[in-house]
């Protein structure tokens, strides 16, 4: 119980840092909101349910955005909920626009800001052609990075800009500041020819940032791994690398590995059960599982207004891989 962290801080700060206060506040708030109904089945029961749902990650469903982004746990829970609910959309192989993904997000969180979705799309589409179609997995992983580390990424963006413009980022106190500056001057000259910033310098800044950053940031070791592979890189290059990094995904823990993205046997089972209940459904579906697969896959490509499955040039390789995997895993 008494972790060293626990002892290092005064109680109140500790509670605040671990977001316990957030949940307590929210619990009371929820209680307040529905006090008549809740008082009927017991306040103790309510608190039990509340904290259970927090543990299960279902507490964020249909909540307001301010709550969803309040804690890392909430963010992870939201990412997971999004994945679970709309995995089927990705499984179907549809490519959607940023706006449509945004709509899906809004189904879970009515006031989800468009800005965040746009930023995530920018990672996938490399800052241009915002109307392009994206595969589900591409978007999801980019969105994960953007959403979970949004504050961190903002700071990174600032650092990147500072580095690009050649001055030492004032937000970062680099221990070897003088040498850093020395190294930067030639880098500036190269920057005009080469794109982006030098990876090692960038890492130094980021490492520093991670140390000080009070919001969640990716594990520095993994960031180092990402940056160590290249000499120079751009901001979006960095983001793309982050979003595709398995380790970071694992560290975050909200989503399964890319290969398993379409796997959710429990839910698939549930879905089959639901399909049987479709009002006025033909017997054939319940009779043979193949039949149930067939109509769902064929009609959208033949008669329905679904768009032909064009992949935008940038997501080509990625999305193809993921859809193929889906096909295999399904059969």
């Amino acid at each position, binding site marked *: 119980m008494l972790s060293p962290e626990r002892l290092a801080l005064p109680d109140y700060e500790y509670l605040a840092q671990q977001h316990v206060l957030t949940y307590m506040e929210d619990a009371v*708030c929820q209680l307040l909101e529905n006090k008549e109904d809740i008082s009927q089945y017991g306040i103790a029961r309510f608190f039990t349910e509340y904290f259970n749902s927090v543990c299960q990650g279902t507490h964020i469903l249909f909540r307001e955005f301010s709550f969803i982004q309040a804690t890392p746990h909430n963010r992870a829970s939201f990412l997971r909920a999004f994945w679970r609910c709309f995995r089927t959309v990705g499984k179907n192989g549809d490519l959607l626009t940023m706006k449509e993904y945004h709509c899906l997000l809004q189904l879970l969180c009515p006031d989800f800001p468009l800005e965040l979705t746009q930023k995530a799309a920018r990672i996938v589409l490399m800052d241009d052609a915002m109307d392009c179609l994206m595969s589900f997995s591409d978007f999801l992983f980019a969105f994960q990075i953007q959403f979970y580390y949004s504050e961190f990424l903002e700071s990174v963006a600032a650092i990147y800009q500072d580095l690009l413009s050649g001055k030492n980022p004032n937000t970062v106190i680099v221990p070897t500041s003088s040498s850093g500056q020395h190294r930067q001057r030639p880098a500036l000259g190269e920057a005009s020819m080469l794109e982006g910033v030098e990876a090692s310098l960038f890492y130094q800044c980021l490492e520093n940032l991670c140390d000080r950053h009070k919001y969640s940031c990716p594990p520095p070791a993994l960031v180092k791994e990402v940056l160590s592979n290249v000499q120079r890189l751009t901001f979006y290059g960095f983001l793309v690398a982050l979003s595709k990094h398995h380790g970071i995904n694992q560290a975050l823990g909200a989503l399964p590995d890319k290969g398993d993205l379409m796997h959710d046997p429990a839910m698939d089972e549930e879905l089959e059960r639901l399909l049987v209940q479709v009002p006025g459904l033909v017997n054939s579906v319940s009779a043979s599982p193949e039949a149930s697969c067939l109509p769902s896959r064929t009609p959208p490509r033949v008669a329905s207004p679904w768009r032909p499955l064009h992949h935008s040039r940038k997501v080509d390789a990625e999305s193809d891989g993921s859809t193929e995997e889906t096909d295999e895993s399904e059969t």
Partner: protein
Amino acid sequence: MIPGKYRSVSGRATNNVNCGLHLVIQTSSLPEKNKVEFKLNKETSSFPGRLLQHDLERNYSSRQGDGRVISPSPRNKSSCISSTTNVTELCGLEMKTAMSSLSAFGDSSTQTPSKSRMRQGCHSAGPNVSGDHINLVSSSMPSFPILQRSSEEKILYSDRLTLERQKLTVCPIIDGEEHLRLLNFQHNFITRIQNISNLQRLIFLDLYDNQIEEISGLSTLRSLRVLLLGKNRIRKISNLENLKNLDVLDLHGNQITKVENVNHLCDLRVLNLARNLLSHVDNLNGLDSLTELNLRHNQITSVRDVDNLPCLQRLFLSFNNISSFENVSCLADSSSLSDITFDGNPIAQESWYKHTILQNMMQLRQLDMKRVTEEERRMASVVAKKEEEKKRESHKQSLLKEKKRLTINNVARKWDLQQNRGANIPTNQDRKDSDSPSQDPCPIDGSTISAFPEETGSLDSGLISALQGLSVTDTHLVEVDGDTLSLYGSGALESLDRNWSVQTAGMVTTVSFSFIEFDEIVQVLPKLKIKFPNSLHLKFKETNLVMLQQFNALAQLRRVDQLTVDPQGNPVVNFTLWKYYVLFRLSHFSMQKINGTEVTQNDMIMAERLFGILAHVASSELPQYRMISILGDTRKKQFQYLLETKGKKPGITSEENNDSKRLTGENTNRATLNYTTRDFYNEKLEEIKEKKKFCKMYIEDLVKEATEINMKNEALQKLWPQMFIELVRDAVIEIRNKNSYMKLCLQQITDQK
């Protein structure tokens, strides 16, 4: 009206009519042989037949105008007959004489039998039955025969000369006949009018059935009153300048293409232009005495200027090419016209012919030779009134249509403005958007007015003037057309508060929304559900449907069979998933059509496949307190509405409650997917913020208190062992000296007592 002069002249003529006219015409080329004796029989014996014929003709013409078509022989000149009668009436002549004297320009056919009987040729002088003897003597002058009459004939018929059927190719020189008033050249082959300029007293000149090609040689005949030039080859009306006293002008059966050079004939009563080549009639001004105008058998398509004829009573337009009343509309302006014929024209075939004519020409007494009865007139006016009404109705209709169009335009413009403004103020647009347009309509009106003229440019002038009275500032439009209720503009939503008749409400199965913010529509959906329980088909156009979750709002309706979301102004339609989401979310309606496309089983399965998990997660994984709160919101909302509107009627309320229960029962697993409008949601967020603030403070206090207690507790825990030891030590020290301790104890006991 009639110049006395003429009457007296005719009177004199009358006196002489009964007397035979004996002329001797001598052709100079055939001195003796060709001396032909004519007998122009003007005797009473021939009269009855002629008279009979005339009567016949007259009746004929008055009864059946068409008869002439059947036997259109050039001999049948009905026009002449009417002229005849006309003259008879006007001149007040004795009937018989008038007939006889004017029969010349009447019908040759009437005379033919008797005449031919009388004389077969010029040279074969027929038996002198009785009457005139005319000797045509070929004169010494080249090619012109000179006419001489015996003196007794001259005395007998001093003022008339008849040279019918003499095979004359030129006009003979008529000498010593200066008193001649009546000259007849019927049925000859005369090509040119000449040699008669000395006959300055001539009143009556008949050149019927000759080969005259141009009117000429008449300039000296100033007293001429009757000029008969029927059945000739005249192409142009000309050279009548001096014939100012002309009373009757017959030009029928010629080749005249144009009415001209007649404007000075202010005494002309009868003008016959039948069987010519006229196609347009105009240039009639100046004919101030004209009472009869005959224009039968031409190719007339339009008539003008008739309203400039103050005395015109009879107008014959039979057998022409008139096809619409507009082409002869001047007739309506003539106040004197009482008799008109249109038979044989295309116009007479139309169903509206009779009543249109009668309606436009109230003064008419005869139409196509039939008396116009009061009944007919009444019928005509009834029909006309009906037509007028119809016209007015259609005018009103088009006016309404136009107004509708304008209103919709206006609403659309306003909508556009609103949308643009919304785009300009991306943050916090929701609130401002819905409020601002109604607050400042001025710029909107301005733009409407400026755009007005070009918009109505296509309309006829009458409509435009009527439209100017319309207010184009209407900001909304409600229209019930059959089973469709169309609402344009957000203001139209208020109409749902109106008391709709049960019938209307029951009939409406389609509700269409245009130019209305979807969020505003959501707020009236409960009303819609109550007021129009049969609405099955919803249409949205320009309603700012942008999110899938907005469709959640439709789930609260009772039934929706069809949904049409126009891509215009509804970006959500561009999404690949929207249809499936609708099917999924509104699956309890078992919808049949979306945007006109039939919903198939596969669509349903696909929808379930895509969103089924969402529903499952939403229903099974949502903690109960959340479920309560979410479902509670909807229920509360409905309840609130019921309290507001129908609270007084408990029956309906309970029914509503049942209804909502049934609804939520139907799709529990997706009832949690609902839509709150932006306004409402923001309100809710505000509320939550307030609560959060309070909770934060409350928890802060609680936690602080708890941590303080905890701290004290910890401190106590730290101190406690030492305290305990100290306490024990004190106790031990106290009881170390047994005796003194005992003493002390005893002392205490005794003190107590």
